Structure formats: C-alpha cells, structure tokens
C-alpha cells in the first residue's frame, strides 16, 4: 500500500491496493481497480471463500468476467469470477436455469469477486500494483466493444423457436405438476384437523372461508363498525340527552382557516374569539363569555383590495402622484 501511495494518482485507502488497468495498449490513462482480500465471517459466504477470494472494486464496463479472469490468470489459476452491481450481495444467488427468462445483465462500473484456487493467488494479485498498467483487451483475447458488440448482442437477441418452446413446455409441465400436487394435498387435508387440532378452511368446500386479503379485511372491519353503530344507544341516559342538546345549539367548532382569511373576515365579524395558529376556536359553551380584546392588536391592517386590484399593475389613474 505504501508503494501505491507514492504515485498520487494510484493512491488507495487503507486495506486496498490500487491496480492500474487500461483497455488496450492504445489508451493512455488507466483506471484503477481497488482490490483487497475478501473478508467475511467464517461460513457466511460459501460462494466466495475468504482468503482465496479477491474483492475488486471499480471494474470498468467493458471488463467481462472472462476478461477479468484473463487479467488475473498470471497470479494463479482462477476458479470463478462473479460480477455484480454492488458489494455485499454475495449471498448464494439464485442459479439461473433459464436461457430466456429473468436474464439480468450487469452494466456500468461493477464490483467483482475473483476466487482463486489457492491463497497465493490473492497475494500475487495485490503485488501486481508494482507493474505497469494491465491490459484488458489483448491480441490473444480481444474484448468486443462498440459496433461489433452491438451487432453480436442483436444477433443474440434472436431466439430459437424450438428451444424456447421446449423450455416453456418443460416449465409448464413442472408448474402443472406442482399445482396438481398442491391441490391434491389440499383436497386431502380438507376438513381434517392437523396434529394440534386445527382445521384449515379454504375457499373451496362446503363452508368456504373469507379470503385473507387486505381488502376483505377492511370490508369486514367496516361492517363491524356499522353494526356497532346500530347497536349503540343514543341519548339513553339523561346526561347524554342534555349533552346532545347543548351540542346542537352551540356547537364547538374547530375550523381550519388560513391565517390570511382569519385576519380579514373573521376578525371583522366574529371578534370575541381567541385563536391560535391557523385554527379559530369558536367556543361552544362559553359563547358569551370569551375574552373580547384578545384579537384587536394582532388583527390590524386594511382589508384586501377588491379583486379588480389584480390589474393594478396595468391601471394607472394617478400619474401625478408619483
């Protein structure tokens, strides 16, 4: 690392080593791969065993796994190269079985895990920083970019009908089988209590249950609420009756009014109320007893000019005044 630090451009943060790479001999300025030994807790990452795995940052977009393994081949035999979007997802990835579906290609700058056969490979790779820039595309292993790459990928996008058909058929057979099995299992369990005595209720059968969806749940809750409201006795006790009556005559209001409106209209007409923030609280019970002067000081100022004043910029009635 100290060695890397000498060249300013190729500096590397603690724990990493900077390796200069170039696309080909023609390019002048290199990119810098940052490599370090992959470190995880024992057993957490089986695909990338620690000590044998080199973690590589900042892999340029044109650097495919093949090119990367070619790059590190000189340090020892490379067992596998994994390229992904961002680090940390090195958990066991779903193995892609399909040639046509769920194909994801990683693009742009990537990170890579290079797994060597032997531990020495990792150390040797780190030592590469002493050498000149590594070349990704060499005469023996040219990397396709630009037009030739796009033509190739266009050609690759054309699918073979038979192959696709075969794959779809195979998948659907599996799927049908799975569904059939599940249905058979469900039919077998229908109405039969499990070990703890629970009976599974499905939508099929003589007594279908409710579907367990959010919408159904909400519907049930709503219905419950209505039922409850129907059952509740209103004005049963004398005090309830009194309360309702009073509420009806002098309701307690909480009006969300914008301040601008408050200061101009309400203030003019409904003086004797206190308010705070954007809310005007009109007292219900203390209709006559509120403080009278609390508003006066804060509500001075003229009423907004009539709507026509919007055109004030255009009108000029009094040139003289200015």
């Amino acid at each position, binding site marked *: 690392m100290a060695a890397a630090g000498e060249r300013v451009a190729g500096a590397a943060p603690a724990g990493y080593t900077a390796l200069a790479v170039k696309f080909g001999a023609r390019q002048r300025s290199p990119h810098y791969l940052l490599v370090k030994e992959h470190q995880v807790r024992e057993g957490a990452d089986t695909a990338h065993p620690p000590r044998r795995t080199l973690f590589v940052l900042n892999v340029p977009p044109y650097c495919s796994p093949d090119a990367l393994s070619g790059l590190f081949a000189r340090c020892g035999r490379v067992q596998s190269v994994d390229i992904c979007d961002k680090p940390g997802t090195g958990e066991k990835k779903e193995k892609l079985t399909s040639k046509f579906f769920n194909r994801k290609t990683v693009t742009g*700058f990537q990170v890579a895990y290079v797994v060597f056969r032997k531990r020495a490979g990792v150390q040797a790779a780190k030592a590469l920083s002493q050498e000149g820039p590594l070349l990704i595309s060499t005469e023996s292993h040219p990397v396709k970019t630009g037009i030739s790459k796009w033509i190739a990928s266009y050609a690759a996008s054309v699918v073979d009908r038979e192959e*696709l058909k075969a794959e779809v058929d195979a998948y659907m057979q599996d799927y049908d089988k799975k569904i059939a099995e599940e249905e058979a299992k469900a039919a077998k369990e229908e109405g039969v209590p499990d070990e703890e005595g629970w009976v599974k209720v499905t939508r099929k059968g003589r007594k279908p249950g409710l579907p367990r969806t959010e919408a159904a749940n909400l519907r049930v809750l709503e219905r419950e609420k209505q039922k409850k409201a129907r059952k509740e006795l209103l004005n049963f006790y004398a005090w309830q009756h009194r309360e309702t009556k009073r509420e009806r005559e002098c309701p307690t209001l909480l009006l969300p009014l914008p301040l601008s409106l408050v200061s101009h209209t309400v203030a003019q007409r409904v003086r004797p109320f206190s308010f705070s923030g954007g809310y005007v609280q009109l007292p219900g019970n203390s209709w006559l007893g509120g403080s009278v002067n609390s508003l006066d000081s804060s509500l001075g100022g003229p009423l907004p000019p009539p709507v026509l004043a919007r055109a004030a910029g255009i009108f000029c009635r009094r040139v003289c005044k200015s």
Partner: protein
Amino acid sequence: PPPAVRGGSCAAVRHPPLMQNTGAARGGKRAAPAGAGAGALQPAKLSRAELYKPPTSEELSQLKETEDLFHSSLLRLQVSRGGPGSRRWPRSAPLRLTDQAWLPKGVKVPFLQVPFSVKGRFRFVPPTELKVVGSYLLGTCIKPEINVDVAVTMPREIFQDKDNLNQRYHRKRALYLAHIAQHFSKEKLFGSVKFAYMNSNHLKPILLLRPQGKDEKMVTVRLHACPAPGLFKPIRFYPSKNNVRTAWFMEQSTPKEGATEPPTPHYNNSILCDTVLLSHLQFLSSAATDFPGMKDGLALLKVWLNQRQLSKGLGSFSGFLASMLVAYLLMKRKIVKMMSGYQVLRSTLQFLATTDLSVTGISLVKDADASLPVLDDFHQAFEVVFVDPSGLVNLCADMTASKYHQVQFEAKRSMEILDDRMVDGFQVLLMTAKPMLRAFDHVFHLKHVSKLQGACKKMQLLNELMDRGGNYVAAALPFIVSLLARGLAGRALLVAHSLPEIPEWPIDAEPPKHKDVGPLMFGLLFVPEFAASLLEKGPQADHPEALDFRTFWGEKSELRRFQDGSICEAVVWEADTVYQKRLIPEQIVKHLLKLHADIPESSICYMGALLELSVCPQVSGTGEEAMVSVVCSYDDLSRKLWNLKGLPLTVTAVQGVHPALRYTDVFPPIPMKPIYSSYNRIRTKHLLLPLEEKPCPAYIAPLKIVCHMEGSGQWPQDKGAIKRIKAAFHLQLAELLQQQHQLVCRPAVTHTDVYKDGYVFRLQVAYHRETLILKEVVTPEGMLKYQDTEESRQLELETLHLPYLTSSLHGLQQQHPVFGSTCRLAKRWVSAQLLSNNISEECVDLLVAFLFLHPAPFTPPSSPQVGFLRFLDLLATFDWKNNPLIVNLNAGLTGEQAIKNRFVAARSRLPVMFIATPKDQWSSMWTQEQPSAQILQRLLMLASESLRAVEEQLMDPLNSQDVKMVFRPPLEFYDVLIHLNPTQIPRHLESVDRPLKSFSRGVVKNSTSVKILFPVVDYDPVQCYLQELRDAFSDLALFFYDKHGGEVIAVLWKPLSFQPQPFKVSSMKGRMVTTLNSELVCVPNVEAILEDFEVLGEGLVKSVEARTEKWTI
C-alpha cells in the same frame, strides 16, 4: 416654465408633473380662482388686495365648471392673449401657404404636401385657448402609454374663406404645429419634442412633448390643434359633400366641364373631428360623473383591446371609441351608473358581440335634427358607423368592416369565456396577449405596400385616394380585405389585417411617407372542415350570377358537371398532399390579388406553413399520408388477429401504443424492403444481421401493439408461469399468422415481430390479471396485500394507460386534423434541443392536446405552425409551480377544483410538471420521473428564446426566413462533445439540416414483398451507445442527444460529482483515489473516462471533443 403656461392663468389645483405652474406657487388657495378668471387679463403680479378680494360671480362659475368637468384635481390650462408668453410667440406676417422659408432648418412641416401648390395664406397667431381633453381628465389612462391630450385652439384670424377646401385647413394646422414645435424645441423643459400622426392618419399630425429626465418614458403630452369654434359651417362637411377638387388633386389647370365632384366623407370627417374635441370631453365627463364603475370598466376594456392589438393604428378601435361606446350604452340604459367595472366590461362586450355596426350603425344624437344627415348617409360613405353626439362625426370613419368584425368576433369569444366556469376569465381575457401570429391560423405579409398604388389604379380608386388625401394604403385596404373575404368565404371564419401604423418622428425629419407603414400583415382564421377543400362550387352555368363568378375567379373558373347532373361554374385547386391542401388559401390569396389588384406573387410573403415542411421533410409532403397508411395496415392486422383460428384463448382487444398509431410520430415509418447484399444473411433462421463494414442499416421502428387475451381459469396465477404462457402465445401467434396469412414473423420472449406491408409490428400479449398478480404481497401473518411494484407499474403503463391515451388522442386527431402535425413539430423541437430523453413523448402529446382542448382565449389551432407557436408559449408562460395543467380528454372531468385543491395541498410531493387527465387525476404518471426541475427550467428558457426568435423571423418578411434556426441546439453550454460517425447513425437523414452526403442503408421503399428474410428491426447503435454511457456514468454526467439524426452527443458533468469525496465502497465508479492535503479523497478519473467514451463507442465515435477549460476538479 413653458410660455404656454406662463400667463399666470394656470388653474391646476394640484401641480402637474410636467409643467410647473406659477399660479399655484404664488397664491396658494386663492390663486386658483383668480387665475381661472375668464378675462385672463390680470398682470403677472397681483397686489395683496386683489389677491384676497372675494371672487366675482363670473370667476365662481368658471371655478364651478372646472370642478364639474375636471373633478377639481385636474389640469386646466389657458393661455391669455395678452400674457407674456405672446411676446415670445410673436405673430408672424401673413405668407403664402407654399412659402415656408420662415421655418428654421431644424423643423420640417409634418405634412405630406402632395400636390404642393395650394392657395391660401398663413400666419402665426398665439392660440386662444389650451385645454386638456381626453382620457387623462377622465382618469381612464392606462399604462404603458400615459397620454395627456391638449387641445390648442387656433384663433380665427389665421383662417380664410374656403379653408375647408383642398387640404388648406390641414396644411395650416400642420404649419401651426410646426411653429409651436420650433419654439418648444429650444425649451430645456422637454426631453423630446416629436411629431406623430394622430391614429396614424397622415392628415392629422400632432406634437408630442415629453418631460426631461426620468419621467420621459412615463408621460407624453400630445398637442392637437383645432379650429376656433364656429369657424366652419357644419353643412359643408356632410358625408355627401365634396371638399377636395379633382382638378387640384390631379394638378390639372382647369376643371373638367360638367364632371360632378365625388363626395369626400373621410376628408370631411377629419376636419369635423377637430371641431368637436371639447364637446366630446364634456359629453364623456357628464357620463362619467357619479359612475365609478365606468373608470374601471374602461380600463378593463382598454386592456382587453390592447391585448388583442386592436387599439393602435389607422382605423383602430381606440380607447376613446370604447369610452364613447360605454357612454352610448349608458344613454340607451343598457348600462346604469350603479354597475361595477366588470359589469360595464361585460355589457359592452355583449353589445359588441351582438351588434354589427357595419350594417346597423348607432348614433349618440339625442334629439334628431332634421337637417343633420341620417344614418343611411353615413352607411353609404363609411364601412362602420358610430355617430357622435353632434350628429356630424363618424367616430369609426377609418375602421374597415373587417376590423370591426374582428372586434365582434373577439367579443363573442370573450363572452363565451366569461360564461365558461372552467376557465379563469381574468387571466385569459385580460392577461394573455393575442398577437396576430399566434391568433390566426395563417398569416401573410404584403411586403411592399407601395404595390398598393398599382392596386388603386387597377381597382379605379381615384375618388377614394382623393378622399384619403392620397393615402393609397388606407384607400386600397378595405377593398383588398373584402376581396379576400369574398374569395375565402367558406373557408375562413375571419379575414383580418394589421392596422397600418406610422411611428413618431423627430421634428427635423421629413414626415413619413405612406409606404413607411411597413409590411401589412393579414391573418386568416379557418373553418377547419372547409379550409382545405379542393373545390369552389359556383352557380349553375345558365344563372345570371355565373358571369359574376367568372369575372371574380378569372381563368380559374371552368364549367364542370357534378354528380347530381348539374353543370356549374367551379374552381378546382391543385393539391396532392394534406400539406398542400392546407395551403390552398395561399393559392387563392395569390390568385385573387394578382387578378384584381395587380399585386405580384413575389410581394406576398405567405407564412402559413414555413415550419412544417422545413422540419419534418419526408419524400412527399409532411408524412401525414404515411401515417394514414400505417394506421390502415394496423387496422388490417388487428382484424386478422381477431379472426385468427386455432388459438386456445380468443383475442379480446387489440390496441396500438406506438405514437404513429395516434398520428403523433415525428417520422412515421415508411414501408421498407431490405436489400440482401448489405446484410449478413442467416438463412437457417430466416433473418438478416447488420454487417460491421457496411453503413448501419436504416432504422426500422417496431410499431408496438398490445393484444389482450381473454381471461380464463386456464391462466396460471403465478408470475413466472404467466411469463412462460405469454411466451408460448407469442410463439403460437407467429406460427398462426404465418400459416393463415403468410406474414413473416419473428417471435421472442416478450413479443412477436410481424412484417406486414413493409412495416414491422411488435405484438405483445397481455393478460389483464397479470398486473394484479405482480402486485400481490403476502404479509408475515399470511394476509394478501396489493402493493405497487416497479414491474407492475411498468406493465400497467404499457398495457392499460398507454393504449387508453393512444385511443383518446387518436380521437382528438379525428376532431382536429392538425393535432398530429402540431405534436410532431413540438416533439421535433424538443428532440432538436437534445431534450427528448428528458421528457416523455406522452407528456408532449398531452401538452399539445391541452392547446386543442382548452384554447381560450384563442380558437383551436387549424395549422400546425400556429399550434407550435402556442406550444412554445404554453411552455414558457405556464406557471408550473403553482398550477396543475388539466387536460380534459374526452370531456371526462367535472371536478377540476378538487384537483387544484389537492394539488396545492400536496405540491411538494408532486412532480415539477403536473398534468392531470380524467383517467389520471392524482398521479401525473407521464411526468412522474421526468423532467427534473433543472431540465424543466432549461426547457422553459429554450422555449421562450425559441418563441422570440421564430416570431421575429415570421414578423420580418423582408429578410430571408431561416426558421430552422430554432431547431439547431446551442452547443457551447456543454462540457464534452462526442462526435459520431455519420455512417453508423441509422436515422441520419432525419436531421434538421438534411445531410449533403447520404449512405446506402440497405433498404428500398416497397410494401408488396411477402416472402423475405426478416429485416433488422429496432437496431440503433447510437441508442445502444447512449444506454451504455448512461449505465456507466449516470452519476457523473448527463448525456444529451437528438435522436433524429443528431451527429453529436453532448455531455454535461454533474457539478456535484466533481467535488472530492471521502472514499466509499459504493461510490467508486469511475473514480480514483488521490491525496489532497494529505487526505485520501475520491475524484472522477476524467482522462480515463474520456478514453472510455471512445472505447465504448468503437466504430461509432469519430472524436471526443473535451472542453477542458470548462471544468476543474
């Protein structure tokens, strides 16, 4: 102070800003009545006793009058004959009118003296009276031009008998003003002293005075000279009387024997106007007393007129006319004094909308005097009639019928808007300018108005010329306009002309000539259904009108037999394409003007369709026909899909989603057939691949179609399985189409491409429950929930919303035939400004749809060009921050206010550009991700700049029009330019400036071939390249490209990314670690990145131009 006000007789109670008044300074309160004394013979200094003596009754009445008339706070000026001012304005000796040597060099007579020789003598005598008249006193002046009109009464002594004849009055008036000007030009008080024509009427020069200093721009004092009252007998100026002798005008020595002299109503009117200046003021002020609403209403009316460019120039509907009209309505009790300003505006517009003054004139005369001329006399002499209170003057004398019809049309339209609850009337009526370019569908300029001289000769308008004092523009204009109106009768709703306007000129310059009005502009507003019809059907051949028709259309008229067996005169215009059909009015205009007015085609500059052809050039026309044939082919395919036999599930719906299927694709696909030799043939798979060494094949766009399959229990209810089943459907569709209809197909996992009629359609199978299944989430408690995911949103957009939008806009195109073309122009502009990737196509479509659905205060565009101008204006002026743009597609919205309220409440969380449609009221799905605030800002800036530039070009017919200018992006703004190799740009031919060199792209136009190897579809190396660039460097830079054949990719570094950052594992992309002040930081590895640009675009990139001076790390 100026001599005019030095007499100590200034009665201004408040001091006027422009003229210091000595009276007020001297005497305070008492000076005013004293100064207002009618005798005005007081010495300059009054003794104390005199100053404080009680006012005489005469003075009191004068004061009362001042107060009544002028609301006490107004300026009133009088010049006393014996005041000291007269010493500096000496009377001059009487000289012949033609003897003008007394004028100093610095002043030229503000009058076109043709013919020069005229009898009569002139001498200068100081004016008898100076009075402020007009809107200033009434308090109805509006910005930006504050004018104070002052009537200068010329004393009786300078006039002679017969001054009413042969422009003698006018010339004396001009000389009088010149004399005053000569004096004022020496005064330091005035910032500028200039001449102008009153309402651009060259018989009526006026003198403009502006105060010195910063007030110069604020206010203008206009001096009008008028004759002493009672000088002329009114009977001499009745509309049927002659006051210009033919012999004099033609400069013949002796009048022709026995020839009757033609009436000169316009000439007479121009003199009469001067005699009634003061009485009009009194009339108006009596109307305005106790009527506060009048002031507001007039101000609104004037703004309304100004925004429509109706209030300036010869024959304008001036503010004065508006005041008189309000007074008329008051007299007729259509307005009462209780009314507010808004009500006054409304009633006036209502009256204008329903009354045609060119047919039924109105008069302000209260008690009809039998000796006065009647309305019919006026109608015979003038096109528009509005008689003043004296019963002599026609206030609308110079107005053409066409101009009045325009006013009427605007009033009608405005009433509709006021009655429409959905529109903000104030904003639309009074705050939106309606320049002719944006208001009319087609405009054309008459480049050289001097050609109208020939027109006058051809149309034999000698009498009119005499009447108008030789102004051939004013003489010919009414005839030209009515000629055009007749020719375009069925096609045009409105034929309007701009008002000839002559700018003011310095007093030492010669007065402007008639040709100095500059190019005249005409505007046509079309009836969309008939504007483009090929046939002009005339009367039957044996009818008497047939002859008239034949003379009107000239050689173009021919006899034709029609399907109903009738034989009629008819004119058939030649036009093959839609584009040419839209230009039939141009043919008509040019033909008629040549035939009847001798105006050559070369002096007509028709601006109807300059933009369209220059921007979307196709092999023939503008590609609208191509779009129609695409849609036909699509309809055929969808029928075939419906009837396909052997599918396990039936097709329930076929919906197009490609822009070409809603007529808004900039470059609609053209039927193509590949030439095998330019490709790599793969016979085993029946397809072609591009070859590296050949130029990139022409881009064939796949036309996306969504094919909905019937719902059934057989569909699996699992994401993965549905995808497989869809793939199986794609395979099967391909097979069945090939078997049953011999179409060449290429299935893929997500779609099937079908080659049909030279087009490639991309079929996509959809299952309506799939979006729901994609949304399903099972909570840990085992409950099923529906949640939007990226995938489900995308699918919903493609299979639900986009087809709906496409069909709605397709419907809109059926109503408004130019919708598609407008959209295409707008999109072309967006992409030419390199922003097509930053704003979705659908968003632009909706913006244009807005112009057609909510055109107020305009009418829906009937030509793509005007639509495009309004699109730019909408972008530049709409307040995106505070308002949602509501596009009421299919009139499916009712609660617009609810949207607005909700928008305001949630503004910060909503996209910067919010577009609501009936099916998408709350989410604005087409603008959710783009454009970003910065991009929108840039878009708005570009729009307002482009609008300015293109309007400037369209308004200037004398220079060559290069309207493509606004389609060439400014590149100096970007950090890096990546130049591309034209051979590898498949759409190179679409670029704005058609390339000189083109390449063989391996296709020929052909739509008949059936059995072929499948062509290369959707292969655009530039787009692949851009995708890779954005994937790799999106957090460092932005990439801009014109997808229609651009040769340059413009790169802009993101400013933040160049800041050194501390090392982070996740943000190392394309950066390098370096030491800065002994600290380790990350910076972008720019040199390597620039080389990456070349590496990634191997074969496509020609060079990378880095403007290193623009950035620092």
